[in-house]
């Protein structure tokens, strides 16, 4: 028995009919909306690769049902840059080489944006603590932390 939902995805209003209640938000984003920047890593709410913003909060979209997101504002990595202009966090990941294989990067950026918001002088320790829910299996944390510090300053 499908459900009709509508949500705002990266600023665009979308309505979907006949959504299976068990459809996960991450699968809605990837399969139904074709936005494949959001990755599925562990699929058990630990790795953070599927992190998106839902009504202004960073959430793990592998652990949210699409029907729970009905009526929400959802922002994915595709909604970050405007007119080809990278956000401060994206630019800092580029400049500081905050990625190796790149799989965790969209989730890192979505989590990072919320982590440094309103905290331009965030410490290494605060960043590392705040990234508990995002795992980089290349173990490239050094430059990820560096990028987030740069982005925190740049966004201020």
């Amino acid at each position, binding site marked *: 028995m499908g459900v009709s939902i509508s949500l705002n995805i990266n600023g665009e209003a979308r309505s979907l009919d006949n959504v*299976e*209640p*068990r459809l996960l938000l991450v699968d809605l984003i990837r399969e139904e909306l074709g936005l494949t920047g959001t990755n599925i890593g562990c699929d058990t*709410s630990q790795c953070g690769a599927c992190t998106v913003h839902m009504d202004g909060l960073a959430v*793990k979209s592998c*652990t949210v*049902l699409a029907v729970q997101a009905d009526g929400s504002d959802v922002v994915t990595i595709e909604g970050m840059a405007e007119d080809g202009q990278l956000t401060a966090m994206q630019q800092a990941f580029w400049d500081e080489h905050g990625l190796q294989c790149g799989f965790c990067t969209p989730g890192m950026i979505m989590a990072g944006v919320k982590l440094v918001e309103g905290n331009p002088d965030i410490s290494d320790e605060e960043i590392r603590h705040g990234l508990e*829910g995002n795992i980089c299996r290349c173990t490239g944390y050094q430059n990820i932390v560096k990028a987030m510090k740069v982005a925190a300053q740049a966004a201020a």
Partner: protein
Amino acid sequence: MYPPNFNYVRAGSVAEALSLIASEDDAKFLAGGHSLVPAMKLRLDAPGTLIDIGRIEDLRGIAYGSGDENDCIGPLTTHATIASSNLASALVEAAGGIGDPQVRNRGTIGGNIAHADPASDLPTVLTALEASIRVENPSNARNIDAANFFTGLFETSLEENELITVIAVPREGAGTGSAYAKLFNPASRYAVVGACASVTLNNGVVSRARVAVGGLTPMATRCGSVEAALEGRSTDAIKEASAQVASDVGDDILEDIHASAEYRLGVIPVYVERALQAACARAAG
């Protein structure tokens, strides 16, 4: 991983949620979904119907009591909200150590305690703080002490058609302090063991101690022997009192790939001691 199929209905009010639970077969309430959805993905649970209560605003938020009144927490209040609240320190501390920021943004206190994971933090804290849990069904409401709410491994005294509507937690007056200390599982942040203490100090003497532990027992466990060994004595007795925890936890000690029963029993006195020390420091102001 997809959860098994289920019917989905959304409740707009407590009354509607209660009427739906009475009429649907094999139904469960869905709050933030951060315990239930993972359990369903792993096929540990497969309810036929999910009643989504996540949009009932009456069930969200904190009403602070004044004087001797309890602080009342709505079951949909997220761990993130509790972690930045003025509730009892142990509760704030424990909520801030659950999972990670993303999990804390969605996970709720009501969902957490209804799930009653033995490695969860909040059951331990609510037991030590002597919280009271209000539950309602279509015709009745009752209050359950936290100590009677958790009845076993993933088991509570909730009846099938009951909804948690309030979690009432005593306010901490002057001279009282509480703390939560846990050994984190490094991947999941669940408690391998956890200890919560609430203490009242009177001229350097512990006049009242409440202690509970979790992670090593099938459910949060009150530690009467530790409490008795500390009450009426100075904070110098904390280490000695903490060692009494072995006689409070019984023989049914959990073990898994993360820690043997022997290890959990060995390490728990350390965490009881840490929780008591921190609670006493807070009680002393």
